[in-house]
């Protein structure tokens, strides 16, 4: 009897989950109608009811690349520092981790206000993709750091004693063994961070703006795909179909970025960066 109940409850939960996914998929598929090749190369016309989303794709790519430029180096360094700090029992480490978790839980609209005050106004970047990308970097950094830290910690637990017993220098242990071993975790962290960046609207409205023109540099303002979806769905009557098409492009772009970051950091670890073959078969003699 208990078995039947538990099967029933878990089955229902599974069906509900799939139903949500199916609803989203159906909405996206309804957008296929507007997605022609012109959709990718033209700018919007008639407030987005017609034309394409080329400027938004370019703006979104700019934003993701700028946020990566912040998140990848800073995030790897910060996560490494946290792991090394734990090894050496640095005081105050728990406070840093607590601050990161607090930052990760901060609503994106608050991060947007900070980005506006700091990057747009204080640093004088104005409404620009650079300000937007940097804000996204701040927003996703804690998530990236904590996820990477888990991967690094696992690698340290597994290999640090052995490396120490061999008398390896700490930089060698970190660069050649621990960081490459944490490659898959970093890849996962980057995918999560990118997903959040691409989905973000609130933080961007305050920082990168929402002018739907083709950005010519990182100092131009621009409208991301998700801001465009929001605008079409909320402010433009008759923009629903174009919103669905844009959402479809957004999802496909996210999948493409996932695949790319897996290639960069996943299977081969960050071995690509250190020309180390990590955990994969290689039959060269």
């Amino acid at each position, binding site marked *: 009897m208990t078995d039947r109940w538990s099967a029933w409850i878990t089955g229902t939960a599974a069906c509900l989950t799939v139903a949500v996914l199916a609803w989203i998929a159906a909405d996206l598929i309804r957008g296929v109608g507007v997605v022609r090749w012109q959709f990718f190369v033209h700018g919007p016309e008639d407030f987005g009811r017609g034309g394409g989303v080329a400027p938004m794709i370019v703006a979104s790519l700019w934003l993701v690349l700028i946020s990566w430029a912040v998140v990848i180096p800073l995030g790897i360094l910060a996560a490494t520092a946290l792991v090394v700090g734990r090894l050496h*029992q640095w005081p105050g480490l728990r406070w840093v981790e607590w601050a990161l978790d607090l930052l990760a839980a901060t609503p994106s609209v608050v991060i947007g206000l900070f980005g506006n005050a700091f990057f747009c106004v204080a640093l004088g970047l104005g409404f620009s993709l650079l300000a937007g990308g940097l804000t996204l970097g701040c927003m996703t950094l804690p998530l990236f750091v904590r996820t990477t830290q888990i991967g690094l910690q696992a690698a340290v637990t597994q290999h640090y*004693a052995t*490396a*120490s*017993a*061999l008398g*390896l220098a700490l930089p060698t242990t970190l660069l050649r063994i621990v960081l490459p071993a944490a490659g898959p975790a970093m890849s996962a962290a980057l995918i999560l961070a990118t997903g959040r960046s691409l989905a973000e609207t609130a933080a961007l409205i305050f920082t990168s703006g929402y002018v739907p023109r083709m950005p010519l540099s990182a100092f131009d303002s621009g409208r991301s795909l998700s801001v465009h979806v929001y605008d079409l769905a909320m402010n433009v009557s008759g923009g629903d179909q174009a919103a669905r098409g844009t959402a479809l492009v957004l999802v496909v772009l996210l999948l493409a970025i996932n695949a790319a970051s897996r290639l960069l950091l996943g299977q081969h670890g960050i071995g690509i960066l250190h020309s180390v073959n990590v955990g994969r078969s290689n*039959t060269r*003699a």
Partner: protein
Amino acid sequence: MSPNPNHQKFTITGDDAPVIDIRDLTARYGGRTVLRQVSLQVRPLRILTIVGPSGCGKSTLLASINRLTDLIPDCHITGEIRVEGQPIFQRGYDVRSLRRRIGWIAQRPTPFPLSIWENLELPMRDHGLGDRRQRQQRIEQVLHRVGLWEEIRHRLHAAATELSGGQQQRLCIARAILLQPTILLLDEPCSHLDPLSAQRIELLIKELRQSMTIVLVTHHLAQARRLADDLAFFWWRDGAGELVEWGAAKELFTQPQHRLTDAYLSGDLG
């Protein structure tokens, strides 16, 4: 019938001066004592085998010889260990050089997630041993010595984790002896291996004794009987490990001084 930690059955003189000299070693994790007042000497080019039940501090003793205990938070060591005459807990002691001179092999094989070749070359390069050609020669020599060369010569750039458990353990031994240690610490190196692989490791340990001093922790009394020149028997009292008796293996197996040793080595205890 409390164990006598300082019991000693032979005197050490002249050329037999101990390579490792442990005096009154006590190890605590937080407030808990795991090893109490151990005094023990390891003679050069011999195999000292340490036996005793689980949890009596054998691995802690081994890890304190190359100061791996430094990595354990809250681990506090008192007493003294001299390695080749040098007190290793002295302030400013070069731990990196100590660990190069003392090889350490864990229970489970611990290859790095790198290729076989990189597993062997990376530590040598980090310690600045030889140029590329010399390293290549040394690696080939050592792989012959551990009996791996013929098995893996055609796939040196394959991932080390693809090797069998026994091969991985021999690779780890090769990696350790490439740094030309004078002492090798083995912490139950065969406990996760099949009997055939274990036998190969045993043969290798016997061969290695010709050029280095070996301290072997084992649970297998039969293995201890086959390999040990000297034997140390540990037991716990009041929750902490203590050295009950140590001396030449033959004597301990035939005429143990302590009743506990007799019971354990004859298989009546543990």
